[in-house]
């Protein structure tokens, strides 16, 4: 979803960091994308290339770090892995799940020159 505006958000984070930490070239970006964040990695990679053109991050390698989805099953009273936001509990098969992890969209670190 809306990967283009999110990619612009990624670039904004990078440009803010460039100003703060005084670097003028980014060669690699580690981006954490949660499995339940609703962000498509492929679409993000495509948009990242498009929005970074002419910026400090032009041509930078995008390393996507996928984090697994985790939910709290109210019936089982424990954390269980989740593949989708509407997924069921792998143990009891119920849908009483609250998402507790895997919704991240974070710029983790940059390799800069």
């Amino acid at each position, binding site marked *: 979803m809306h990967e283009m505006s999110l990619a*612009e958000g990624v670039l904004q*984070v990078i440009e803010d960091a460039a100003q703060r930490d005084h670097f*003028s*070239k980014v060669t690699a970006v580690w981006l954490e994308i949660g499995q339940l964040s609703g962000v498509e990695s492929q679409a993000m990679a*495509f948009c990242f290339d498009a929005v970074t053109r002419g910026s400090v991050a032009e041509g930078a390698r995008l390393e996507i770090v996928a984090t697994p989805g985790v939910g709290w099953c109210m019936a089982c009273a424990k954390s269980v892995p989740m593949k989708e936001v509407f997924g069921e509990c792998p143990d009891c098969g119920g*849908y*009483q799940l609250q998402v507790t992890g895997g919704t991240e*969209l974070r710029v983790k670190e940059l390799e*800069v020159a």
Partner: protein
Amino acid sequence: MCVTCGCGEGEVKIDGVAGHAHEHGHDHSHAQGDLHSHAPGVGQTRMVQIEQDVLAKNNAYAQANRDKLAERGVFALNLVSSPGSGKTTLLCKTIDLLGSTSVAVIEGDQQTSQDADRICATGAPAIQINTGKGCHLDAHMVGHALQQLPLADGALLMIENVGNLVCPAAFDLGEAHKVVILSVTEGEDKPIKYPDMFRAASLMLLNKVDLLPHLTYDVDAAIAFARRVNPAIRVIQVSATSGQGMDEWLTYLRAGMARTAAARQQTVAVLKARVAALEAQLQQAKA
């Protein structure tokens, strides 16, 4: 999807006015040309730890909006749905019933001021944000709209988002709650097709229920799908046309407004008590 539409800046208009030819209450940089100087020949590289949320900027604007709304005791809702779910009709009816003096509206659409015009006809203040190519409202746009919108203390603010069940889910605008509107002329399985939106909302309005006799729509299935994605979601069945369920919806709104106004009064009372205590302290010091 936005991958093709762009969602870029540059075409956003607030009440028909483009760009930033208006007051800025906060700082942000629009152009960063000075950063675009490339180092000739890349030498040694180093790592920079960032650990920053991509939506952090939007979330900061959202928090500023939320603080501003709390100061005024305004209960704000972000109305989200697919296009054609009946949001604007439901809004007009709600304004009729609540009274136009206690409601203000921010309308989001890609183009035209059709919706804001419909709201203005009810007598309530409304401001139109045109997102241009953008597929959702963000907190920055709403912050600017709030600067221009006449908003009474203790009012209800309805933000009608761009008709889109995907993108608006991720963008906090500073609202108290997201309200998702699903009409019975859509599929029962919308909640599991677009789970992010139904998970982000705390209330689902099942709209156009007056049409149920003419349709083969399974209300229970739709609600079950919504609860599968969001076990805590509340559901109200409404029809702006027949008036069915409007009482329950208005009760929900009045309760939210009362809660927000009470929180503001409490804040004011605490501040007054502090001022009184400081004044007493000052008198003591003078004596």
